[in-house]
């Protein structure tokens, strides 16, 4: 959920406040993920690390378009949106570092985390699978006669090729659910360029085929992201049904930290913009803050992150001995496998 901002005195003030807030989520995400990458290289994290470098503006704008009570199913490159939606630093590091005190208790890791009861769904790896799940939450609310809340989920260009994306978006369209589906077209699905993924002129052309509203946005432009996502959220909340957003950018990292992304087209690389740098230039250009302010913010954020890491590193890992080795919540229905 967006952190409370002082009531804006004018529309410009409001825009400025939102921009700054978004920037700070972006910054928090960027530095958090840099630290995670460092921890990974230092062998402190088992398993994969997938970061959202370059995608923070889109992600933060998505998280900020949501309100308390809304639903969010982020994907692998959504650290900024997770923060904006209310995730704590401790939840992040506890999951990556496998603390037993984290929401996933070492059972699941890295990006596979959430707090479903708080509307923050925990993704499964199978891409596309969260689309119908968010639709289902929204359907539940419609069935109970509750209105006013919306849901959002994110996907990459690659994930648009899944059957789950198609079935989920179509179901949401048929039910006219207030679902925002954010597609980050970051030009690659792992190593696969979009030319091997789809051949439509523009992914936004898919909207008409589902009978949903579609809009495109430059994901390196934070102001555009904020405006587009807010408008989509407003439309969804007002009962206009699913909103398909196609955002363009270049992934500025490897698929995961193990990947040097050597396959990325140098032409794309050269033309790429980093949304965080663009935002900083904008902030300074608009004189919303000085370079010194930015430095201070960075230091503040860094300290908070380091504190969270220090705390987490002192926490106990999961202990297989007192683990409840069952996937069934109903004790009397646990199948009696004799001890091996």
């Amino acid at each position, binding site marked *: 959920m967006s952190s409370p901002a002082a009531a804006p005195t004018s529309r410009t003030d409001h825009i400025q406040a939102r921009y700054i807030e978004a920037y700070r989520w972006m910054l928090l995400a960027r530095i958090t993920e840099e630290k995670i990458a460092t921890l990974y290289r230092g062998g402190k994290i088992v398993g994969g690390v997938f970061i959202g470098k370059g995608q923070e503006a889109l992600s933060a704008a998505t998280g900020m378009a949501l309100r308390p009570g809304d639903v969010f199913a982020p994907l692998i490159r959504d650290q900024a949106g997770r923060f904006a939606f209310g995730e704590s630093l401790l939840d992040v590091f506890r999951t990556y570092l496998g603390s037993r005190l984290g929401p996933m208790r070492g059972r699941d890791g890295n990006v596979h985390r959430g707090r479903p009861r708080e509307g923050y769904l925990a993704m499964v790896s199978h891409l596309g699978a969260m689309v119908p799940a968010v639709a289902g939450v929204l359907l539940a609310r419609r*069935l109970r006669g509750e209105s006013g809340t919306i849901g959002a989920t994110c996907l990459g260009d690659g994930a648009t090729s899944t059957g789950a994306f198609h079935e989920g978006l179509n179901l949401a369209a048929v039910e006219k659910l207030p679902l925002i589906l954010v597609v980050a077209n970051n030009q690659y699905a792992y190593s696969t360029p979009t030319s091997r993924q789809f051949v439509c002129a523009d992914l936004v052309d898919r909207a008409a085929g589902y009978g949903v509203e579609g809009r495109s946005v430059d994901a390196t432009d934070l102001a555009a992201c904020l405006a587009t996502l807010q408008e989509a959220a407003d439309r969804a909340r007002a009962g206009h049904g699913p909103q398909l957003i196609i955002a363009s950018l270049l992934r500025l990292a490897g698929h995961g930290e193990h990947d040097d992304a050597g396959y990325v087209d140098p032409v794309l690389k050269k033309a790429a913009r980093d949304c965080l740098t663009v935002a900083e230039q904008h902030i300074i250009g608009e004189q919303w803050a000085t370079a010194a302010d930015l430095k201070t913010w960075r230091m503040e954020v860094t300290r908070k992150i380091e504190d969270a890491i220090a705390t987490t590193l002192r926490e106990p890992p999961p202990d297989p001995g007192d683990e409840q080795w069952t996937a069934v919540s109903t004790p009397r229905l646990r199948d009696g496998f004799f001890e091996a």
Partner: protein
Amino acid sequence: MITYLEAIREAQHKALADDPRVYLYGQDIGNFGGAFKATKGLAKDFPGRVLDAPLSEDAIIGSAIGAAIDGMRPIVEMQFADFSTCGLNQIINHAATLYWRTNIPCPIVVRLPSGGTAGAGPFHSQSMEALYAHYPGLIVMTPATVEDAYSMLLEAVAIDDPVIFCEHKYLYYHLKAPALPTEALPTGKARVARQGRDMTIVAYSAMVHEALACADELASEGWQIEVIDLRSVKPLDTDTVLASVARTGRLLVVGEAFPWGGVTAEVIARVAQEGFSLLDAPPVRINAKDTPVPYHPNLWGTHRPTARTIAAEARKLLHL
């Protein structure tokens, strides 16, 4: 008299009436009442709570999971069990893992019209209990009686975990009971469907009736066969099976699914490991043949176990 199918409809009626969190979702289940009429009349009795779904098994299950997270108790109908393969990813990777991963349970019920009928062929006849039971986090029910069809479906809705409800199409119209039950064994407990002391036949779903028919046949030859109805294959009530084998010393396990792995293998593996000394003869299993389910009744009748083929094996085992 009430049929197995009517019992399923009545259970859904009661679930809808008793619990506002329940809704039904599936293809053609609304005004049409479902391909088998298992939801006949429910859309009318519960307006807005019995929804026709698009032809999208993955999204049907996925949306039910989301709704369950948000506090609902969806009952999903797959038009045939066979089509659940198109929603299997959501079942085994999302619904089944949710509680373990997040501590939030996932109370969905997926109804699978299962098993073979004459002429239904390879894609409308499958028994998928083994596939689902293999996966941690799922409850797999396989009711064999009208009473269980009713009470277990109600229990399935009440259970916080995802339940795969394998209802047998062959029993839909064939099986009748005088009335709906007022009390029931809890899921997880097998039922001694017939008492005997010479041999134990363990079965579930439609095969319980083949086993009972076989027991009748063998009774005329002087044998007393005990028949255990597993009721649910996960959890699987090993204790009741072991107690029976302790009495009879002989075990035959019958399933309608494909032979490799599955319920019959699981039962025998448990008895062999935990009750080895109770066995006076090798445990025997009977399954369908290792091919897709055939279309033509001539072939289908041979593909699945029947009272006759069970009796033939049973006689051999009794003489060991």
